[in-house]
């Protein structure tokens, strides 16, 4: 099923107690390859928790220098925080035209653990939207999802990913996302298979649902095991595991539209279309199903 095509749209990058080598890109590639994942999008744990600018600089340098090992492509998110708005505006200019940096990400405030509000990030997002790349917002609970929804409403032209599905409050969180066409969700967070079917039902299909693990805090093997247990059709599974992310992150050969303001703003590095990077290949046709419920196995037996 995998062929190394699964796309994990949101992971961390940096050492943690049980995975001290998670700061090494080859280690991330080794672990992801073992789980059938061909593309992983990382953001710096240093940027999320302590020094946004330094962490972003490190992740930017790392993904630009990365070469696929084991067929695993590593792409990056730039973390944003209003406390470093001026520095980040400059950093976005330097980084976000590069095709290996897929977009920007918002995390709860590292000191208060409170989700950032639209008022907190309005200025930053006005600077960010010219890059026409997606915005990822970590939504660990329903309160964070509520803030994410307000941002999605105000920045309706920005493609967004709510990452974490509201954690254990997935049901309340999912009930908020249905009326926002620019909002996608990923399936990281609680390891409850019921939430996947609930999300497909409440979002009228799987077109806006993405695979993410949140590694190293959650092993992608666990999220794949949960997805397997949800018993989805092949069409829904392939959409979630890679087809939706290919489109959203322009990994399918479709380049993002460059606006007049973006051209005026100008990249400072030559951009390469994402489909020319590493092992990213155009998508294969999705196998037809006869009953719409054919199930594949990418669970424990596939590891």
């Amino acid at each position, binding site marked *: 099923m995998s062929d190394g095509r699964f796309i994990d749209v949101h992971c961390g990058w940096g050492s*943690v*107690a*049980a*995975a001290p080598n*998670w700061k090494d890109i080859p280690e991330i590639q080794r*672990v992801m390859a*073992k*789980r059938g994942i061909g593309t992983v999008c990382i953001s710096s744990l240093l940027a999320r928790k302590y020094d946004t600018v330094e962490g972003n600089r490190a992740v930017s340098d790392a993904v630009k220098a990365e070469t696929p090992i084991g067929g695993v492509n590593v792409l990056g998110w730039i973390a944003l925080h209003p406390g470093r708005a001026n520095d980040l505006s400059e950093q976005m200019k330097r980084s976000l035209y590069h095709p290996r940096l897929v977009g920007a990400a918002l995390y709860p405030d590292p000191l208060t653990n409170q989700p950032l509000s639209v008022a907190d990030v309005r200025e930053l997002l006005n600077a960010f939207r010219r890059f026409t790349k997606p915005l990822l917002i970590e939504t660990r609970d329903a309160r964070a999802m509520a803030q994410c929804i307000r941002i999605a409403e105000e920045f309706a032209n920005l493609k967004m990913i709510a990452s974490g599905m509201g954690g254990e409050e997935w*049901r309340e969180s999912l009930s908020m996302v249905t009326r926002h066409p620019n909002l996608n969700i990923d399936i990281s967070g609680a*390891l*409850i*298979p019921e939430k996947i079917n609930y999300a497909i039902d409440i979002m009228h299909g799987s077109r806006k649902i993405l695979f993410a693990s949140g*590694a*190293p*805090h*959650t*092993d992608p*093997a*666990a*999220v*794949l*095991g*949960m997805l*397997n*247990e949800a018993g989805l059709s092949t069409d829904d599974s392939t959409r979630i595991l890679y087809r939706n992310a290919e489109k959203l992150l322009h990994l399918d050969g479709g380049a993002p539209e460059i606006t007049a303001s973006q051209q005026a703003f100008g990249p400072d590095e030559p951009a390469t279309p994402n489909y020319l990077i590493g092992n990213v290949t155009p998508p294969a046709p999705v196998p037809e199903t006869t009953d719409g419920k054919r199930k594949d196995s990418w*669970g*424990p*037996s596939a*590891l």
Partner: protein
Amino acid sequence: MADVVLDMFTLFGPVPPRPGEHGVEPLLAVLQKHGVAGAVTLSTRGLYYSASAGNRETIHLCTQAGGALLPACVLDPRQPQVLQTITGAKMLCLLPATQKWPMLYAPLTDMLRAVAQSPDAANLPLWIEVSRPGDGTALAAELRETGYSGPVIMGSVIGENLIEAIAVARADNRVFIATDGLRGIGEIAAAVGAIGASRVVFASGAPVQALGAALAMVAAAEISDSDREAILNGNARRLLSGRNATA
């Protein structure tokens, strides 16, 4: 993977306030789907409503389930009369975070003293949920205080509390760590490396939590096949048989 997998912690019944099927059929179905031979289980009624009523339901339905399910009884220190309903249990469970009572708690001390003196309960494995920071440390103090001498399984240990759980287990060789909360890269291997595979047991929290995810974590752990076998089967078998329960 082990030929025969035993799951040390599962549930049956609805989780409030959502509707759900009463009875063990959804649990049996998910166990069968994943080829899990047996599971220790308890009724959510005992967890969320009445420990006594839930324990009676657990023992009754496990008896009817033909050997695949082994009954675990809930000990709720807020309901001391519950000790009268644990006859037939294969494991006792304390779930302070789910039931929202503190780990350092005088009624818990009293209850553990009573369990330690009970001929029905004194050597049963004791499952204790230690998902909150500090709960593992408080558990160690309670065990010293009460003289409880049976094997103890720390369940729902999450990654950020793993260091604490390992410290507690290192200091007391009858303390085990369950895998149900360990979901991060390298966490199961870290537990095995710190206290040995003989004191790590497989548990899932199914069917509320994904059994497939829990199995995938053990399959993906970078440990030897013999360690994996011990985690998935051998240690649970040893604990549940009451023979050489402590490692």
